[in-house]
Protein backbone atom coordinates (compact mmCIF):
# COMPACT_ATOMS: atom_id res chain seq x y z
CA UNK A 1 0.00 0.00 0.00
CA UNK A 2 2.78 2.35 0.97
CA UNK A 3 4.48 1.80 -2.36
CA UNK A 4 1.36 2.90 -4.21
CA UNK A 5 1.15 6.10 -2.20
CA UNK A 6 4.81 6.90 -2.88
CA UNK A 7 4.29 6.20 -6.58
CA UNK A 8 1.20 8.39 -6.57
CA UNK A 9 3.12 11.24 -4.97
CA UNK A 10 6.07 10.87 -7.37
CA UNK A 11 3.87 10.68 -10.44
CA UNK A 12 1.98 13.81 -9.39
CA UNK A 13 5.28 15.61 -8.85
CA UNK A 14 6.30 14.60 -12.38
CA UNK A 15 2.98 15.89 -13.70
CA UNK A 16 3.51 19.27 -12.02
CA UNK A 17 6.95 19.55 -13.65
CA UNK A 18 5.42 18.74 -17.05
CA UNK A 19 2.62 21.24 -16.43
CA UNK A 20 5.24 23.96 -15.95
CA UNK A 21 6.49 23.18 -19.46
CA UNK A 22 3.19 22.60 -21.20
CA UNK A 23 1.34 25.66 -19.95
CA UNK A 24 3.76 28.29 -21.32
CA UNK A 25 4.00 26.28 -24.56
CA UNK A 26 0.27 25.99 -25.14
CA UNK A 27 -0.07 29.73 -24.53
CA UNK A 28 2.72 30.54 -27.00
CA UNK A 29 1.12 28.22 -29.61
CA UNK A 30 -1.99 30.38 -29.57
CA UNK A 31 0.08 33.54 -30.05
CA UNK A 32 2.03 31.88 -32.84
CA UNK A 33 -1.18 31.03 -34.69
CA UNK A 34 -1.95 34.77 -34.63
CA UNK A 35 1.14 35.70 -36.60
CA UNK A 36 1.09 32.83 -39.06
CA UNK A 37 1.33 34.94 -42.21
CA UNK A 38 4.66 36.48 -41.19
CA UNK A 39 6.43 33.15 -41.58
CA UNK A 40 4.82 32.24 -44.90
CA UNK A 41 7.49 34.00 -46.94
CA UNK A 42 10.54 31.83 -46.27
CA UNK A 43 11.10 28.44 -47.88
CA UNK A 44 12.94 25.17 -47.81
CA UNK A 45 13.39 24.91 -51.57
CA UNK A 46 16.48 22.69 -51.42
CA UNK A 47 14.39 19.94 -49.85
CA UNK A 48 11.70 20.21 -52.51
CA UNK A 49 9.35 22.10 -50.19
CA UNK A 50 8.11 25.45 -51.49
CA UNK A 51 6.76 28.59 -49.82
CA UNK A 52 3.26 27.10 -49.72
CA UNK A 53 4.54 24.14 -47.76
CA UNK A 54 6.38 26.27 -45.26
CA UNK A 55 3.46 26.94 -42.91
CA UNK A 56 2.56 23.28 -42.36
CA UNK A 57 6.26 22.49 -42.04
CA UNK A 58 6.99 25.10 -39.39
CA UNK A 59 3.75 24.38 -37.54
CA UNK A 60 4.68 20.73 -37.40
CA UNK A 61 8.28 21.33 -36.34
CA UNK A 62 7.24 23.59 -33.49
CA UNK A 63 3.82 22.37 -32.42
CA UNK A 64 3.71 18.78 -33.58
CA UNK A 65 1.29 16.59 -35.44
CA UNK A 66 -1.33 16.04 -32.77
CA UNK A 67 -2.02 19.63 -31.77
CA UNK A 68 -0.95 21.20 -35.06
CA UNK A 69 -3.00 18.75 -37.10
CA UNK A 70 -5.71 21.29 -37.89
CA UNK A 71 -3.30 23.85 -39.32
CA UNK A 72 -1.27 21.23 -41.18
CA UNK A 73 -4.21 19.52 -42.85
CA UNK A 74 -5.84 22.87 -43.66
CA UNK A 75 -2.70 24.41 -45.21
CA UNK A 76 -1.89 21.33 -47.27
CA UNK A 77 -5.43 21.02 -48.61
CA UNK A 78 -6.14 24.67 -49.33
CA UNK A 79 -2.80 25.70 -50.81
CA UNK A 80 -2.97 23.13 -53.63
CA UNK A 81 0.26 21.53 -52.51
CA UNK A 82 1.28 18.71 -54.84
CA UNK A 83 1.15 15.18 -53.55
CA UNK A 84 4.88 14.92 -53.91
CA UNK A 85 5.45 17.98 -51.77
CA UNK A 86 2.91 16.88 -49.16
CA UNK A 87 4.81 13.61 -48.88
CA UNK A 88 8.12 15.41 -48.38
CA UNK A 89 6.60 17.68 -45.73
CA UNK A 90 5.19 14.76 -43.79
CA UNK A 91 8.42 12.83 -44.20
CA UNK A 92 10.38 15.72 -42.70
CA UNK A 93 7.81 16.10 -39.94
CA UNK A 94 7.77 12.42 -39.17
CA UNK A 95 11.34 12.76 -37.92
CA UNK A 96 11.31 16.29 -36.66
CA UNK A 97 8.08 17.45 -35.03
CA UNK A 98 6.93 18.97 -31.75
CA UNK A 99 10.59 19.73 -31.27
CA UNK A 100 10.14 22.04 -28.28
CA UNK A 101 7.62 20.06 -26.28
CA UNK A 102 9.07 16.59 -26.93
CA UNK A 103 12.54 17.77 -26.09
CA UNK A 104 11.64 19.60 -22.91
CA UNK A 105 9.52 16.85 -21.42
CA UNK A 106 12.39 14.41 -21.87
CA UNK A 107 14.92 16.90 -20.49
CA UNK A 108 12.82 16.91 -17.30
CA UNK A 109 13.61 13.24 -16.79
CA UNK A 110 17.29 13.56 -17.70
CA UNK A 111 17.84 13.49 -21.47
CA UNK A 112 20.33 15.76 -23.27
CA UNK A 113 18.25 18.36 -25.12
CA UNK A 114 20.93 19.74 -27.44
CA UNK A 115 21.86 16.30 -28.74
CA UNK A 116 18.18 15.55 -29.28
CA UNK A 117 17.38 18.67 -31.28
CA UNK A 118 20.59 18.55 -33.30
CA UNK A 119 20.13 14.92 -34.14
CA UNK A 120 16.52 15.20 -35.20
CA UNK A 121 17.12 18.22 -37.44
CA UNK A 122 20.15 16.66 -39.07
CA UNK A 123 18.42 13.35 -39.65
CA UNK A 124 15.27 15.00 -41.03
CA UNK A 125 17.22 17.18 -43.47
CA UNK A 126 19.48 14.37 -44.68
CA UNK A 127 16.70 11.81 -45.19
CA UNK A 128 14.27 14.26 -46.82
CA UNK A 129 17.03 15.42 -49.18
CA UNK A 130 18.01 11.87 -50.10
CA UNK A 131 14.43 10.84 -50.79
CA UNK A 132 13.69 14.04 -52.72
CA UNK A 133 16.70 13.26 -54.92
CA UNK A 134 16.09 9.52 -55.21
CA UNK A 135 15.04 8.07 -58.54
CA UNK A 136 12.53 5.68 -56.99
CA UNK A 137 10.65 8.53 -55.32
CA UNK A 138 10.52 10.67 -58.44
CA UNK A 139 9.46 7.74 -60.60
CA UNK A 140 6.61 6.99 -58.18
CA UNK A 141 5.06 10.40 -58.66
CA UNK A 142 5.81 10.85 -62.35
CA UNK A 143 4.33 7.61 -63.61
CA UNK A 144 0.73 8.85 -63.83
CA UNK A 145 0.47 10.83 -67.06
CA UNK A 146 -2.48 13.20 -67.15
CA UNK A 147 -2.56 13.60 -63.41
CA UNK A 148 -0.66 16.58 -62.16
CA UNK A 149 -0.14 15.01 -58.78
CA UNK A 150 -2.54 17.30 -56.91
CA UNK A 151 -4.54 16.04 -53.98
CA UNK A 152 -8.25 15.86 -54.74
CA UNK A 153 -10.20 18.39 -52.72
Amino acid at each position, binding site marked *: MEIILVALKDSLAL*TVKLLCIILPLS*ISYEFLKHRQSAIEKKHFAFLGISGKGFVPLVTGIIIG*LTYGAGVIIYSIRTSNTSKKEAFLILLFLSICHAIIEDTLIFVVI*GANGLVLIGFRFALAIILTYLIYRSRLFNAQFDCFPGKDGRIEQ
Partner: protein
Amino acid sequence: MNPLYPTFKRGFLNGISITYKMVKVIVPCYIAIELIKHFGLIEAISTFFKPCMGIFGLPGESALGLIAGYFINLYAAIAVIAPLQLSSKDMTTIALMLGIAHSLPIETGVTRQTGVNAWLMLTARVVFSLFAGIVINLVWKLFL
Protein backbone atom coordinates in the same frame (compact mmCIF):
# COMPACT_ATOMS: atom_id res chain seq x y z
CA MET B 1 -9.54 44.61 -21.64
CA ASN B 2 -6.34 43.65 -23.42
CA PRO B 3 -7.19 42.33 -26.93
CA LEU B 4 -4.70 39.49 -26.51
CA TYR B 5 -6.51 38.16 -23.46
CA PRO B 6 -8.75 35.67 -25.37
CA THR B 7 -5.65 34.22 -27.05
CA PHE B 8 -3.94 33.87 -23.70
CA LYS B 9 -7.01 32.29 -22.16
CA ARG B 10 -7.36 29.78 -24.99
CA GLY B 11 -3.73 28.74 -24.59
CA PHE B 12 -4.07 28.46 -20.84
CA LEU B 13 -7.20 26.30 -21.05
CA ASN B 14 -5.57 24.11 -23.70
CA GLY B 15 -2.60 23.58 -21.40
CA ILE B 16 -4.86 22.59 -18.53
CA SER B 17 -6.84 20.16 -20.68
CA ILE B 18 -3.61 18.57 -22.01
CA THR B 19 -2.37 18.19 -18.45
CA TYR B 20 -5.65 16.63 -17.38
CA LYS B 21 -5.40 14.05 -20.17
CA MET B 22 -1.77 13.50 -19.21
CA VAL B 23 -2.46 12.85 -15.52
CA LYS B 24 -4.90 10.10 -16.42
CA VAL B 25 -2.09 8.29 -18.25
CA ILE B 26 0.90 9.15 -16.09
CA VAL B 27 -0.43 8.15 -12.68
CA PRO B 28 -1.56 4.60 -13.55
CA CYS B 29 1.54 3.90 -15.66
CA TYR B 30 3.86 5.18 -12.95
CA ILE B 31 2.16 3.09 -10.27
CA ALA B 32 2.19 0.00 -12.50
CA ILE B 33 5.94 0.30 -13.04
CA GLU B 34 6.62 0.84 -9.33
CA LEU B 35 4.61 -2.32 -8.58
CA ILE B 36 6.46 -4.28 -11.25
CA LYS B 37 9.71 -3.11 -9.68
CA HIS B 38 8.47 -3.94 -6.19
CA PHE B 39 7.62 -7.53 -7.08
CA GLY B 40 10.99 -8.02 -8.75
CA LEU B 41 9.60 -8.57 -12.24
CA ILE B 42 11.86 -5.96 -13.75
CA GLU B 43 14.85 -8.35 -13.90
CA ALA B 44 12.84 -10.89 -15.86
CA ILE B 45 11.59 -8.25 -18.29
CA SER B 46 15.07 -6.85 -18.59
CA THR B 47 16.62 -10.21 -19.45
CA PHE B 48 13.85 -10.97 -21.92
CA PHE B 49 14.35 -7.74 -23.92
CA LYS B 50 18.11 -7.52 -23.48
CA PRO B 51 19.03 -9.01 -26.89
CA CYS B 52 16.93 -6.60 -28.94
CA MET B 53 17.55 -3.49 -26.82
CA GLY B 54 21.28 -4.15 -26.97
CA ILE B 55 21.23 -2.94 -30.60
CA PHE B 56 20.49 0.55 -29.29
CA GLY B 57 22.84 0.21 -26.33
CA LEU B 58 19.84 0.31 -23.99
CA PRO B 59 19.12 -1.82 -20.92
CA GLY B 60 16.37 -4.43 -21.43
CA GLU B 61 13.76 -2.85 -19.19
CA SER B 62 13.69 0.31 -21.32
CA ALA B 63 11.72 -1.73 -23.88
CA LEU B 64 8.68 -1.03 -21.69
CA GLY B 65 9.12 2.70 -22.26
CA LEU B 66 9.43 2.25 -26.02
CA ILE B 67 6.30 0.09 -26.16
CA ALA B 68 4.31 2.57 -24.06
CA GLY B 69 5.47 5.43 -26.28
CA TYR B 70 4.78 3.72 -29.59
CA PHE B 71 1.32 2.47 -28.68
CA ILE B 72 -0.01 4.96 -26.12
CA ASN B 73 1.78 8.31 -26.07
CA LEU B 74 4.84 10.14 -24.84
CA TYR B 75 3.40 10.84 -21.42
CA ALA B 76 2.85 7.16 -20.82
CA ALA B 77 6.44 6.55 -21.92
CA ILE B 78 7.73 9.20 -19.53
CA ALA B 79 5.77 7.73 -16.65
CA VAL B 80 7.30 4.35 -17.46
CA ILE B 81 10.88 5.56 -17.91
CA ALA B 82 11.08 7.99 -14.99
CA PRO B 83 11.03 5.33 -12.23
CA LEU B 84 13.60 3.17 -14.06
CA GLN B 85 16.45 5.61 -13.31
CA LEU B 86 18.35 5.34 -16.57
CA SER B 87 21.53 7.21 -17.51
CA SER B 88 21.42 10.44 -19.49
CA LYS B 89 22.63 8.61 -22.61
CA ASP B 90 19.86 6.03 -22.32
CA MET B 91 17.24 8.74 -21.75
CA THR B 92 18.46 10.67 -24.78
CA THR B 93 18.40 7.56 -26.98
CA ILE B 94 14.86 6.69 -25.94
CA ALA B 95 13.75 10.31 -26.31
CA LEU B 96 15.15 10.43 -29.84
CA MET B 97 13.51 7.16 -30.87
CA LEU B 98 10.18 8.10 -29.33
CA GLY B 99 10.37 11.65 -30.64
CA ILE B 100 10.36 10.24 -34.17
CA ALA B 101 7.69 7.59 -33.65
CA HIS B 102 5.06 7.82 -30.92
CA SER B 103 1.28 7.58 -30.38
CA LEU B 104 1.29 5.69 -33.67
CA PRO B 105 -2.41 4.79 -33.71
CA ILE B 106 -3.48 8.45 -33.29
CA GLU B 107 -0.92 10.06 -35.53
CA THR B 108 -1.47 7.61 -38.36
CA GLY B 109 -5.05 8.87 -38.38
CA VAL B 110 -3.86 12.46 -38.71
CA THR B 111 -1.48 11.56 -41.52
CA ARG B 112 -4.22 9.79 -43.45
CA GLN B 113 -6.34 12.95 -43.53
CA THR B 114 -3.63 14.87 -45.37
CA GLY B 115 -4.03 12.49 -48.30
CA VAL B 116 -0.58 10.93 -47.97
CA ASN B 117 -0.19 7.15 -47.87
CA ALA B 118 -0.51 6.55 -44.12
CA TRP B 119 0.84 3.00 -44.04
CA LEU B 120 3.95 4.02 -45.92
CA MET B 121 4.42 6.87 -43.46
CA LEU B 122 3.87 4.57 -40.49
CA THR B 123 6.49 2.14 -41.74
CA ALA B 124 8.86 5.01 -42.49
CA ARG B 125 8.52 6.41 -38.98
CA VAL B 126 9.15 3.11 -37.25
CA VAL B 127 12.13 2.39 -39.50
CA PHE B 128 13.57 5.90 -38.96
CA SER B 129 13.03 5.56 -35.23
CA LEU B 130 14.93 2.28 -35.03
CA PHE B 131 17.60 3.59 -37.40
CA ALA B 132 18.04 6.76 -35.31
CA GLY B 133 18.41 4.63 -32.17
CA ILE B 134 21.19 2.59 -33.74
CA VAL B 135 22.97 5.66 -35.13
CA ILE B 136 22.84 7.72 -31.94
CA ASN B 137 24.23 4.80 -29.97
CA LEU B 138 27.18 4.54 -32.37
CA VAL B 139 27.74 8.30 -32.50
CA TRP B 140 27.57 8.57 -28.72
CA LYS B 141 30.11 5.78 -28.27
CA LEU B 142 32.47 7.34 -30.80
CA PHE B 143 32.29 11.04 -29.94
CA LEU B 144 30.69 11.75 -26.58
